[in-house]
């Protein structure tokens, strides 16, 4: 059912210190990647409330990416770790409501990993495109 021209709606919530900086670095280095992801900046992935993710999927997001610092590198010591722990819960919830939990991903991209950010973007878009449009879209009003 996925047609070639379908563009998935993917939201990324990324931390200011590592992943956002890494994404900026990718820009400086002109790393090219598909334009399907929309980023929202927070200071730390610890800020990510599981409800943000559920809300996005409820609104019809096809995929979601949370990206922060590597473990041990968090600007706020352990926000990324706390966030990662919550991801297990959210992924379980997604499975329980019948969504493929691969639609949600957490990655760790540091401020010096511009190329990795590009690779993450490629891979997230590819994964979501393979999964197709979110089944929750059918229930939209």
């Amino acid at each position, binding site marked *: 059912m996925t047609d070639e021209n379908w563009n998935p709606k993917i939201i990324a919530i990324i931390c200011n210190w590592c992943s*956002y900086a890494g994404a900026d670095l990718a820009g400086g280095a002109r790393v090219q990647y598909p334009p399907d992801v929309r*980023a929202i900046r927070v*200071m730390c992935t610890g*800020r990510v*409330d*599981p*409800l943000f993710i559920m809300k996005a999927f409820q609104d019809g997001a096809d995929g979601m990416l949370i990206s922060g610092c590597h473990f*041990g*590198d968090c600007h*706020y010591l352990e926000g990324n770790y706390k966030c990662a722990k919550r991801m297990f819960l959210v992924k379980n919830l997604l499975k329980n409501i019948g969504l493929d939990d691969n639609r949600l991903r957490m990655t760790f991209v540091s401020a010096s990993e511009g190329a990795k950010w590009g690779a993450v973007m490629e891979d997230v878009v590819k994964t979501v495109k393979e999964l197709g449009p979110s089944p929750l879209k059918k229930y939209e009003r």
Partner: protein
Amino acid sequence: MAETKEEPRIGVFICHCGTNIAGSISIEEVKKYAETLDGVVVADEYQYMCSTPGQSMIIDAIKEHNLNGIVVAACSPRLHEPTFRTATQEGGLNMFRFEMANIRDQNSWVHMHDWEGATEKAKDQVLIAVAKARMLEDLQPKSVPVEHSALVLGGGVGGMQAALDLASAGIKTYLIEKAPTVGGRMSQLDKTFPTLDCSQCILTPKMVDVGRHPNIELRTYTEVEKVEGYIGNFTITLRKKARGVLDPTEALERGIVGGGCNGCGDCAEVCPVIKPNPFEMGMAPRKAIYIYHPQVMPLLYTIDFDSCVKCGLCVDICGPEKRAIDLDMVDTFEEIKVGTCILAIGYDYIPIEQKKEWGYKRFDNVITGLEFERLICASGPTGGHLIRPSDGQTPMKVGFVLCAGSRDNTGGVNKPYCSRFCCMYSLKHAHQIMEKIPGAVPYLFYMDIRSFGKMYEEFYYRIQNEGAKFIRGRVANILEDPITKNLIVNTEDTLLGRPVSMEMDMVVLAAAVQPTPESEKIRQMFGVSKSQDGWLLEAHPKLNPCGTTTAGIYLAGVCQGPKDIPDTVAQAEGAASAASIPIHTGEVQLEPYFAQCMDDICAGCGLCLQQCPYGALDLIEKNGRTVMEVTEAKCKGCGTCGGFCPGGAIKMQHFTSPQICAQIDAFLLKGGE
């Protein structure tokens, strides 16, 4: 919920950034789209929004249209957020009524050949930014006082220079060094290129100054145990390792008048334990109670408790008057408060024996550059006579392998970077051989000679003219003649285009440098990121090479990336200048992204308390209910509590849940439904 909900009146400003943005995105289309968005009263575009006319557009539009929210679609907020916040403020709005859409670094530059995709994304980015701007609130930056003191970690030439500069600027400076003496790598060198100054001769005056300066608190044989706080108010716990020897002040504290170590060295005379001296690269002995070399600062012996047998001979010889030796000494801890910190933690050499083909540690006569420095140094283990480790003979043909591990993606070493000073020190070594040993010929096996500094290229010509031989090619392997212990160097001469095999008396490997083993631990304590190659990451490679992304932490020297002594000293002076600015200003402005408890929603469960890594949250009794309270001075605004609160009772200023949800909704629902 703000009681007086004002109508959003938002201005959107789209930057062309020359063709950086306009070359990949239809500015006109984005502008037209922005005009249709809910709450937007004016949308405009300009060549360079960050220019003075661009900023004036914002200031004028705020007044003309009575705006209460500003969106600039341009580069990264990490770059120009301060610029546009200032413009917003100049227009008469609170500076936090500003939001940025990053349509350059995260759009036009990464989708250069996708006009439609990039334009569509830019429209969404503006939409998301406007959604947030509609909900922005006035905030006041928090001003905190700055401690009038600084910390410099690392007592090499960079650290010493930074400490001297800070101290001379009237700032109390703690200089922390893990070794028993300051001096670092530079004190191990014989001469410095290209001037051929004696390294110790130009370094020791600085070492003496560091010891004497009234504003420098020198802590040798000391490591950082814990770092707490933020710019202006760091609390740092130091571990003073048990030295086993009292300095005169410590002796006085114990009531030993006129006692303490005076550096006479009688203890080392009688000490029965013999160990290799790491300062001499293990090529000379030291005792269990030792100093590295005669010019140590402070002149204070140190006991290596790992090898000390506690025989007590040193205690006896030290005598009842000095009573400087305490064999039962334990590590002590000290807490200091500083406003800013400079990391100058230096570097290490790669274990070059990993490149098995060159035979280091297998063949006696293959040594490293630093071992060569000690062997050629007049105060070194051989008194400056260069000898072959295998038989003590003077080598007449010495090979130098440059880029030994540097610029190399193979062999498990994987150091793709240039170590930057090995070319020059190898040229210096070549000169020293020809100067000290008449008739000796140095052979330099190189990939490229990188003599980039002031008078460096001239130095290269000089060594060529003096008779050094240059063979362009990476050395394939080194073999040893088992009888003569001579070395056969096999390489390709890429200029002649043929393989060559040459017999050498000795080979010196210019080993690549890498971050110190402690670097990882230290950078995590101070909250500093690392580059891909492991060196500490500067805030901006061009425009902020001394700063880091953690406010109040600065970098100096090789720990930020390979550099020679002049560059290290220059960066140290830059870091000292940068670190002194907040201290002399006396206060810093912190972004007010604090957590706030909404008392009427808070159930007082206290689960958030475990989430906060800073202990900023407490439960208190308020109007007969248990609610959470935030200590703003401790809160750093990460939002981990806000992301966790089961009741949604924690408001993260500037990143509130309604704001983030509005951003999500804006994109997914496009304001409709």
